[in-house]
């Protein structure tokens, strides 16, 4: 099994939400004009991911998965065969939407300046693909413990944060360069994101704990064949 740390590092770098899966691109492109708002939105995404993924993990494992309801009554056959996973989409999105509503109210109360700066984009976190994507990837990959799922959500959030802050910093500077007129704004942002994605692909070479063992076996066998 992958260790929790592996999952965390993987989620930040080699399986970055933006550069590997393009999740959350809409707000990524729309709110990355200045670093300040980008930091605010990035922090909001980290927080919402960190809360929603564990909640959805519990829902998935104690309500939706095949046989997940058997904790209600271990002896009942109907409960052990019950598969509610087709309800996953609607459950996940309901959890995400209500938690976003909560965050919105908290930010409005305690950080009005940030609320003014984020404006329309805070409710849009509910439809930010990275949040629902986090929940769906969690379901897809079947993490064994809630700790792993939390590490994954925190890592994905931090990865998204790094991506949006980096592009916002680049966009602030690129204002002073001579970009061809039709590429200004959206076009050049796409191309820069693509180039950053190529850069991030370098992280795919990171060796995780699990990968090492089978390779050693392969080396010893080749030596054995060479000897005689």
């Amino acid at each position, binding site marked *: 099994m992958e260790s929790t740390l592996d999952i965390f590092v993987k989620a930040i770098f080699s399986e970055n939400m933006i550069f590997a*899966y393009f999740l959350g691109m809409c707000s990524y492109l729309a709110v990355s004009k200045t670093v300040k708002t980008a930091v605010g939105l990035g922090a909001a995404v980290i927080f919402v991911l960190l809360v929603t993924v564990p909640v959805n993990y519990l829902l998935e494992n104690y309500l939706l998965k095949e046989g997940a309801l058997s904790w209600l009554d271990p002896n009942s056959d109907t409960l052990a065969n019950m598969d509610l996973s*087709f309800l996953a989409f609607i459950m996940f999105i309901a959890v995400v939407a209500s938690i976003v509503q909560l965050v919105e109210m908290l930010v409005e109360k305690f950080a009005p300046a940030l609320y003014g700066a984020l404006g329309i984009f805070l409710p849009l976190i*509910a439809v930010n693909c990275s949040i629902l994507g986090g929940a769906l990837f969690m379901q897809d990959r079947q993490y064994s413990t809630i700790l792993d799922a939390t590490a994954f959500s925190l890592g994905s959030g931090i990865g998204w944060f790094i991506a949006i802050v980096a592009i916002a910093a680049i966009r602030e500077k690129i204002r002073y360069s001579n970009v061809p007129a039709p590429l200004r704004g*959206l076009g*050049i942002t796409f191309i820069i994101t693509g180039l950053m994605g*190529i850069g991030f692909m370098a992280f795919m070479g990171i060796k995780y704990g699990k990968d090492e063992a089978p390779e050693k076996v392969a080396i010893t066998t080749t030596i054995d064949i060479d000897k005689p």
Partner: protein
Amino acid sequence: MSDIAENKKTPKEPLFSKKNKKLVTDPLTDNNPVTIQVLGICSALAITVQVKQGVVMGLAVIFVLVLGNLIISLLRNLIPSRIRIIVQLVVVASLVIIVDQLLAAFMPDVSEQLSVFVGLIITNCIIMGRFEAFAMANKPWPSIMDGFGNGLGYAGLLVLVAVFRELFGSGTLYGFPIFGDYITGSGLYSIGYVNNNMMILPPMALIIVGVIIWIQRSRNKSLIEEH
């Protein structure tokens, strides 16, 4: 009652009037949801490695968008504005569940390849964007046209990107070999042509869309942004 009174005052519009046609054709070019409105990019890029996936995804989005626009437009006077986002999300989520179950039943291989991206249609900004901007304020028929037009604009761009990526990345189109067989080295491969594996990687999708935006904006100067 009020509806009937409204109908008497305004002369009835033909179903395919100029205005309604414009709702369909506009999103195909100068008001494309992906390249101009910047909506729905999340899923547009990840599933454009093969044309087939792009076509299936495009059809799924057209289906959800047309039906969703219709439902929201019918309900538009009943939805309290404070909770409208949640109502919209529930409508989309139910439609997406239908799509997901249909795909899993009839096209299991494509369903497997698309994996989480079918579910992500729910958070596709095009759908929420059209609900907010159009269906909440318009009658059912124009909403259907608007949904169809925007869905088609999205699907068109998806297929366009997928054609480039599949043709140059794997040398096939919709699964059919175009440049000859790569493994036996026939056709173009016999004179030393190689597939550009770069095209299959995620970042190239972004760069292709960037180039499409570049071409579109240099043809239509009014779309150029300040910065």
